[in-house]
């Protein structure tokens, strides 16, 4: 399977703490994206990092990409209860015109 792996599968933290989730993938990519899904609903795009970038920030989100290790991490700083959701990485694979989603991390943030 081309599907990426994410770890941890589940993460529980208190409000105000930082949450880090990791994604590993298997093929060469154009970019890597992170999406959030609340309670089995539709996904919302969070951030995109291109293959020639190493780090990107957006508000409380920080994404890193290491193409030599085929891995990425998503850091959510100062987490809030509203951040409770499942987070998926998705890779835009060369010449494929499609996204391949990782296995996902379920984040629970307690007030």
């Amino acid at each position, binding site marked *: 399977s081309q*599907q990426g792996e994410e770890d941890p599968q589940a993460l529980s933290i208190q409000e105000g703490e930082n949450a880090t989730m990791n994604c590993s993938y298997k093929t060469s990519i*154009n*970019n890597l*994206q992170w*999406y959030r899904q609340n309670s*089995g*609903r*539709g*996904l*919302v*795009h969070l951030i*995109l990092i291109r293959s020639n970038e190493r780090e990107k920030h957006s508000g409380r989100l920080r994404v890193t990409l290491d193409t030599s290790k085929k891995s990425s991490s998503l850091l959510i700083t100062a987490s809030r209860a509203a951040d409770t959701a499942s987070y*998926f990485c998705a890779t*835009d694979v060369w010449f494929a*015109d*499609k*996204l*391949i*989603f*990782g*296995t*996902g991390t379920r984040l629970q943030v307690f007030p």
Partner: protein
Amino acid sequence: SAVISQKPSRDICQRGTSLTIQCQVDSQVTMMFWYRQQPGQSLTLIATANQGSEATYESGFVIDKFPISRPNLTFSTLTVSNMSPEDSSIYLCSVEGRQETQYFGPGTRLLVL
């Protein structure tokens, strides 16, 4: 960003029957995608649907089981045929967004008894 709606939002069906899921977008898009998300799992791409051409199916998915229509640039349907309990999933449509991202519909929750 595109606004996407799906109908029905959820359904409970008997095995052996078929269900057609509708996906409507508020703007014209070239590429639409259909995904399946089995309980507690990630998203798996079923097919890519471009207007005016046959849908392109991913390995493990066939047209007889998941026929797709794409009559215009704002609408698509996915039919889940001859359903079994293993088809119980969330089915999501999405469209291409800016810079290779995708916008997703709210999903259709299907339970097959």
